[in-house]
């Protein structure tokens, strides 16, 4: 790990030790965006938001670093599931299954993974709802801010069921009902009982911060917290439709040159 990366990680962890012990979720304050008039008073999150490359690169390096200061702290079940996944992945026959399709990278990573990529995110405000459009996997997240509670027996999905509210200029999102097996971190599947609280706010003219707290009573010994930042991109929206997958799941690439 570079010195630079080490200092970044240290700041990262220092920041994460501040704050409540459990995901705070309750206090609606200020405009809730229940009408177009109310939406006009919400913060301006227009544009396309993308993680700074350096932060994305540092996060990847940190995840691979045995000295990673902020790994998800796994239960025994979590360790077993992670190791099983790694064995599955290292078995060439299983990961090269043609039935899985050749353009698997076009699939959504689901929540929370979809938030960690270096791809674009857009926020749309309509009455009673915030919608997030994500380039990765052409994912759509619907966040209901109309005061409704979570449903009693929701269908599981890759993005889960998201209920949000505004605390001043911070959007707080509580997500559950995420499909069993959707990774909570790369290579670590979630249990179907994962709950995620995200706090999203502008921290500068062209900068958004998302603080995420993940709980999973089967996989995690304690809540896993981290922060990510996103900057307003001056470029447009990029399609992620996958049309030229030459090496699929780490297969020897097709080296047939184009005409």
């Amino acid at each position, binding site marked *: 790990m*570079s010195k630079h990366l080490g200092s970044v990680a240290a700041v990262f962890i220092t920041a994460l030790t501040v704050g409540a012990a459990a995901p705070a979720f309750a206090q609606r304050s200020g405009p809730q965006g229940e009408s177009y008039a109310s939406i006009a008073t919400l913060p301006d999150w227009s544009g396309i938001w993308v993680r700074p*490359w350096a932060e994305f*690169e540092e996060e*990847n*390096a*940190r*995840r*691979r670093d*045995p000295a*990673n200061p902020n*790994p998800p*702290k*796994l239960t025994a*079940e*979590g*360790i*077993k599931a*992670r*190791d*099983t*996944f*790694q064995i*599955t*992945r290292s078995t060439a026959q299983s*990961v090269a*299954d043609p039935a*899985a399709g050749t353009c*698997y*990278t*076009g*699939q*959504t*990573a*689901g929540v929370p993974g979809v938030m960690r*990529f*270096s*791809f*674009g995110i857009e926020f749309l405000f309509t009455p009673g709802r915030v919608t997030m459009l994500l380039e*990765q*996997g052409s994912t759509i997240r619907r966040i209901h801010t109309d005061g409704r509670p979570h449903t009693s027996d929701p269908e599981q999905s890759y993005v889960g069921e998201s209920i949000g509210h505004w605390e001043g200029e911070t959007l707080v999102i509580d997500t559950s009902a995420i499909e*069993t097996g*959707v*990774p909570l*971190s*790369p*290579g670590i*599947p979630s249990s*179907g009982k994962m709950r995620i609280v995200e706090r999203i706010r502008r921290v500068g003219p062209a900068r958004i911060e998302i603080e995420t707290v993940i709980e999973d009573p*089967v996989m995690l010994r304690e809540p896993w917290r981290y922060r990510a930042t996103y900057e307003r991109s001056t*470029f447009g929206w*990029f*399609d*992620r439709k*996958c049309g*030229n997958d030459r*090496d699929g799941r*780490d297969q020897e*690439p097709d*080296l047939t*040159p184009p005409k």
Partner: protein
Amino acid sequence: MNPVNRLLAATAILGTLSGTAWAHHSYAMFDQTQTVTVQGMVHALEWTNPHIWVWVNVKDAKGVVTTYGFESNAPSELTRFFGWDKRSLTAGEAVTVDFAPLKSGRAGGALRTIRLADGRVLRTPRSNPEYQTGPPTAGAPGGVQK
């Protein structure tokens, strides 16, 4: 089925999905500890998802031309973070290419940096030799703590 077994079964089923949570794929077929350099003429730029491919015709000492294929990142990443666009390379241009070679020894690799005759330099994430993608190495990160 108990909860853990159900989870493990789901893990196997969703194995392909889980792979998407890191950057696309692990690049395990490339030797990312190495950098090889070739000179040639641009054959084509495939400005495509999930990743772009750059194709370069390289002539050996005997005059035999081999078309090399170099994989890089997504068009969005190269545009937003590395200054590329779909017209960054033109067929017939002379280029010098640094890349991490295929372990198989075939003609291609993971693109690091392209230098053009007019002085332009096209960088990629792998211009940084320490940059790696892929899953955490077994047993390292991921939270094994006593």
